């Protein structure tokens, strides 16, 4: 059955900058915002934009992602024609290889796309948090008679050197593209969201695949060669919340952005719901001596202690006299009696022992390797922090060399 537009979601990233959070799952499966996983955002955006066919391209630790997506019923993507498909790399009689780049991932799955004979293909990435109507972007693309359209976000000029920057003319047509320019000429940063006319993209992917020097990447190879050939490539201006949650710091910040007053990212939006797999748990319980302010709490959790300015996922326990500030507590984690947690991300099913301190100030003589975490303290999934332990800020609590899950440094 023909589809007007098919979405291809690049979910392959290992997300090595998220450290221990992605040791057992791909980045898009990382929890976000109390009830969600990162991938819920692009998937819900697709459904809310009336796109009902989505390919999810992955090659790193696909189990968590695969079982999370399932048949797609939680996003209303279990369809007779279309739906959501997880697409790992595969071998054929003649060859077979890993996805060598973002463009190569799509190229290897061109038969999947061709089944739907689409006019347009939407390319998304699985590590961005934002709400966007892709239908608006498609209208822009059609109106401009573009071969490709790239969604761009205005960023402060002093930060533009961190992004792929589009230089455009008055008609929003892209005249040049610079990856992380030292002297940015514009503040239009690529959001990693592209619409291509499918026949055009197919032709360029084929050419790119034959070029052994190419890194098979949209940003590095495909887009620059379209622009170089004078193809009509346009920049679709987006205004609204958008965040790349590729680092511990930005993942933490994006969580904090939902609980700021007023929230920078509004999730309680009946017209643009974010869908997710439901954990099937009763409403949360708040104890007799509990105190919760400026926070999000959800199903299955029990709070007996104090929670301030934090995001609690489902099935979390905050015991008596425990205190949690400016933190993100992933599903199933337990904060033991009297423990204190400051500016931390506590992983799934982690257990913080009684009276432990997570994210305390650096004491004299403390040496912390915080290259990944900055000021955020990170407790890995399934890690048990010994009672009374002291984790100075920036610490990464993770398995020891022998795979032991008890952290007692």
């Amino acid at each position: 059955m023909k589809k007007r537009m098919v979405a291809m979601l690049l979910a392959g990233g290992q997300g090595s900058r998220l450290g221990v959070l992605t040791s057992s799952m791909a980045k898009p499966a990382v929890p976000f915002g109390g009830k969600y996983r990162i991938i819920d955002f692009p998937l819900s955006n697709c459904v809310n934009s009336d796109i009902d066919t989505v390919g999810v391209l992955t090659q790193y630790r696909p189990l968590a992602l695969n079982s999370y997506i399932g048949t797609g019923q939680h996003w209303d993507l279990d369809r007779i024609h279309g739906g959501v498909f997880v697409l790992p790399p595969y071998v054929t009689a003649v060859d077979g290889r890993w996805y060598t780049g973002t463009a190569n991932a799509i190229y290897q799955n061109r038969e999947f796309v061709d089944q739907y004979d689409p006019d347009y293909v939407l390319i998304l990435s699985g590590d961005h948090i934002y709400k966007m109507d892709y239908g608006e972007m498609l209208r822009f693309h059609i109106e401009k008679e573009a071969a490709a359209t790239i969604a761009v976000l205005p960023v402060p000029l002093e930060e533009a050197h961190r992004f792929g920057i589009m230089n455009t003319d008055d008609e929003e047509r892209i005249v040049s593209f610079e990856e992380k320019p030292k002297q940015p000429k514009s503040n239009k940063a690529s959001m990693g969201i592209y619409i291509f006319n499918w026949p055009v993209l197919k032709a360029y992917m084929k050419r790119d695949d034959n070029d052994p020097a190419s890194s098979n990447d949209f940003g590095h190879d495909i887009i620059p060669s379209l622009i170089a050939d004078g193809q009509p490539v346009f920049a679709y201006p987006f205004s609204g919340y958008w965040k790349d949650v590729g680092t511990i710091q930005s993942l933490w910040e994006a969580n904090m952005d939902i609980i700021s007053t007023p929230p920078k990212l509004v999730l309680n939006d009946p017209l643009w719901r974010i869908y997710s797999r439901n954990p099937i748990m009763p409403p949360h319980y708040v104890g007799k001596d509990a105190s919760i302010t400026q926070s999000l709490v959800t199903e299955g959790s029990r709070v007996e202690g104090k929670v301030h300015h934090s995001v609690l996922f489902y099935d979390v326990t905050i015991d008596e006299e425990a205190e949690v500030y400016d933190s993100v507590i992933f599903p199933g984690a337990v904060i033991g009696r009297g423990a204190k947690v400051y500016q931390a991300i506590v992983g799934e099913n982690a257990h913080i022992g009684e009276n432990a301190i997570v994210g305390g100030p650096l004491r004299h003589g403390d040496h912390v390797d915080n290259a990944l975490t900055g000021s955020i303290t990170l407790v890995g999934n399934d890690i048990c922090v010994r009672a009374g332990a002291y984790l100075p800020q920036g610490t990464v609590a993770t398995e020891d060399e022998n795979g032991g899950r008890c952290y007692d440094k």
Partner: protein
Amino acid sequence: MTSNAFGLIYTGETNPLLRDLALTRSVAAVPFGGRYRCIDFVLSDLVNSGVTSVGLIAQKNYHSLMDHLGAGKEWDLHRKREGLFVLPPFMTKENTGLYRGSIDAIRSCLGYVRRNPEQYVILTGSHTIFNMTFDDMLSRHIQTRANITMLYNEAETTVSEEQNMDLRLILDGDGRVTEMELNPFTPRSTHRSCDVMILDKLLLEYLVEEAYSHGDYDLVRDILLKKSGTLKIMGYRYDGYVARLDSVNDFFRHNLALLQPEVRADLFNPKHPIYTKVKDEVSARYGENAKVKNAMLADGCTIEGTVENSILFRGVAVKKGAVVKNSILMQAVTIGENCQMDHVILDKGVTIRDNRTLTGYDGFPIILKKGTTI
């Protein structure tokens, strides 16, 4: 796992003692526990017992029930083979469409009963709330060669004016039911029926047809009470928490009982999850001045004020300066700024404008019906 039984849930119960709570909905659809409806419990119990075919007899005011259940997807009962069958009243030459009672209702769906390949039927009501599986009860039923096995628990004392379908079982030393009493003035037994029985589907068919031919229409009065001498009816005791929503006071009391950890652990045993319709609400949001103590809150709530000893369903908003105590606020209730609420039950979508005060009493909570604005 129970593979040789199917479920049949009768939702025709009415109960005037629930006043406005069951005015526009069947008792089965009465909200309970922050995000559930009564029926979610017995339906989940069946699913957790491995039952894959459930017939649901709808009778009165079943719109909100159908809306809630849909195709049964959320209970994993949306199947190619078997699954959830909603059986609404219909009219034919022999069927008037209106049921006088449970016998009429079951008789009109005997086709469904016959079609099921399973031998046993687990026949349940829909307004008794508990979390158990029926596997052991079924094996006991088979082992004792009983005609009927009835589930009961040790009931609390009831006030006679709040008695509703209070069926007491009088048992002999072997656990066999020798006699039954419906709404007795002074009960001779503490064993109260939990509205669940297991029997062979051929026996059900026979009993229903026989009673119908005598012009009888009520399963309890016309079959169970009369047959306890002739049929081998066994009792099966359940020791967990049982919530019966007999009256508004019961509704109030059993909801607030969820604030006790033992009751929560029993009714929401993680091994046997209670399924319900998913609404994709966001997490509950606590504001700067929120003060919440001893309360159960569902997703989608926004709390700026004070909440104590209360149950808040999905999407409730409590504005700044408002104080809510000892209350049950159903889905999408809004409490305006500086309101004082104590001992109130606010049905779905009730809006309380700023600065209002409502106070009920223990034993007489104030109820506002669906959609009221004050």
